[in-house]
């Protein structure tokens, strides 16, 4: 990483690459650091994160119960999978123009699209996790007279939780992608994608690079947060890694 940084710096300082395309690495880094001191940046950051988190939460609340039902009942699964097969190939971003018309350019539109895109990975991982539940533990619970809902809550849900978590982790990166792309395409009031777009319109190359890097840092941070939670919560299982 350091080697790359120095190489880029030398390359641009020696004007082997025109500064019009690639400003010196140190200047980009300086611009990136300066971003953190700006209020406008934090507002954009929170707007994007808020949409991601709300969308992710709604998607989880929708997909996990649905996944539990579809994972438990073979017939419901067979029936629903046809619907899922029809809906899933539709690229989520193809819905951006429609969503703009229906919800306008505000946060609701962003959140609606994030929910749509995030439901799939969570749903599939939940169903998959339900299918991995050891039938003996479910039978044991029944033998001890546990009701159906109690069995699901005490046996299925914990056993499937590492898979559900994996689904949510995948969905989180999907949410960030959707948030940034709707902001770039649709505009709106606040968000990292809008700042990126603004930097481009100003023709400020350094700022564009800086925002692109910051978006990457946000993605990395989300990845590490989820990894840390996963390692703490699901230390008892190695199944999470297998999926």
């Amino acid at each position, binding site marked *: *990483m350091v080697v790359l940084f120095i190489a880029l710096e030398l390359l641009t300082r020696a004007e082997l690459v025109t500064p019009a*395309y690639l400003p010196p690495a140190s200047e980009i880094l300086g611009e990136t650091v300066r971003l953190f001191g700006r209020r406008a940046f934090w507002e954009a950051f929170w707007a994007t994160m808020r949409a991601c988190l709300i969308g992710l939460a709604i998607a989880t609340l929708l997909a996990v119960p649905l996944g539990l039902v579809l994972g438990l009942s073979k017939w419901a699964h067979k029936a629903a999978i046809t619907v899922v097969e029809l809906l899933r190939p539709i690229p*989520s*971003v*193809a819905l951006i123009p*429609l969503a703009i018309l229906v919800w306008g350019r505000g946060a609701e539109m962003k959140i609606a699209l994030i929910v749509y895109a995030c439901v799939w990975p969570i749903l599939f991982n939940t169903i998959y996790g339900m299918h991995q539940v050891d039938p003996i533990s479910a039978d044991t619970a029944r033998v001890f007279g546990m009701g159906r809902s109690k069995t699901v809550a005490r046996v299925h849900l914990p056993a499937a939780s590492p898979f559900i978590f994996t689904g949510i982790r995948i969905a989180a990166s999907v949410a960030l992608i959707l948030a940034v792309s709707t902001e770039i395409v649709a505009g709106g009031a606040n968000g990292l994608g809008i700042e990126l*777009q603004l930097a481009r319109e100003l023709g400020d190359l350094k700022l*564009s690079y800086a925002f692109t*890097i910051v978006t990457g840092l946000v993605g*990395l941070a989300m990845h590490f947060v989820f990894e840390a939670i996963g390692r703490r919560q699901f230390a008892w299982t190695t199944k999470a890694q297998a999926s």
Partner: protein
Amino acid sequence: MDDEGASIVSWIRAHLADIAIKIAVLVALVAFWWWATARAQSLFFPTPDTVFESLWNDWLTNWSESWRENFGPSLKRLLLGFGLAAIVSIVMGVAIGRSSTFGDYVEPIIHFVRAIPPPAFLPLFIILLGIGDLQKVVLIAIGVFPPILLNTIDGVRSIDPQQFDTADVFQISTRRRITHVILPAAAPKIFAGLRISMSIAVILMVISELFAATDGLGFRILQTSRQFQYVQLWAGIVVLGIVGTVLNGLLVVVERRVLRWSRV
């Protein structure tokens, strides 16, 4: 023999039920869509018959025009970006998988690039590469690059070392070693990466066309939405869904042919 016959019959029977369910659900779904939209009378959500009518009138009957204006440019960008990224990342993946020093240098960079949501590159690429096809192809290539690369590295690293020892003993040249030992052994993983990448490629193709484009499938749905043609907009979304399904299906067919040996 009797057993086999019986099992085939029961197999058909089991699948008949599946097919029946699928058709029933499909019919129920369309019926529900019809009922709900006819009842709601919403401008945003047209009834299915109008959408199918638009599919027929706007897409199928002037097929040559929609091919020239929408499918052609879109597929060209998608396949160029996807193909370019696939070749580069498989070559790089083999190199990184075989040489750990090279991997140590490059891997942190790959992980960082992967963390950036690909659409975030769009404004930057427009400044650097303009608004033409090049920018769209590069965007698609950058987006699909990491999953193929990481899967290739993974596939190459998990090859049984004994295979290389055997190749050593038989004094097989480096070139044949790559084509006959490394690539076949890593192929299942590589295809897993390609399949993930295909859906990403379709998404990026649409995004790049929603922004600063004059043709393509994404441009068409943007145009219909700007003109408030809701029915045509829905038809465009359906077409994109079909394109995604077909591309995925093609990849699965290729995969089955190439990997036929691995399922034996």
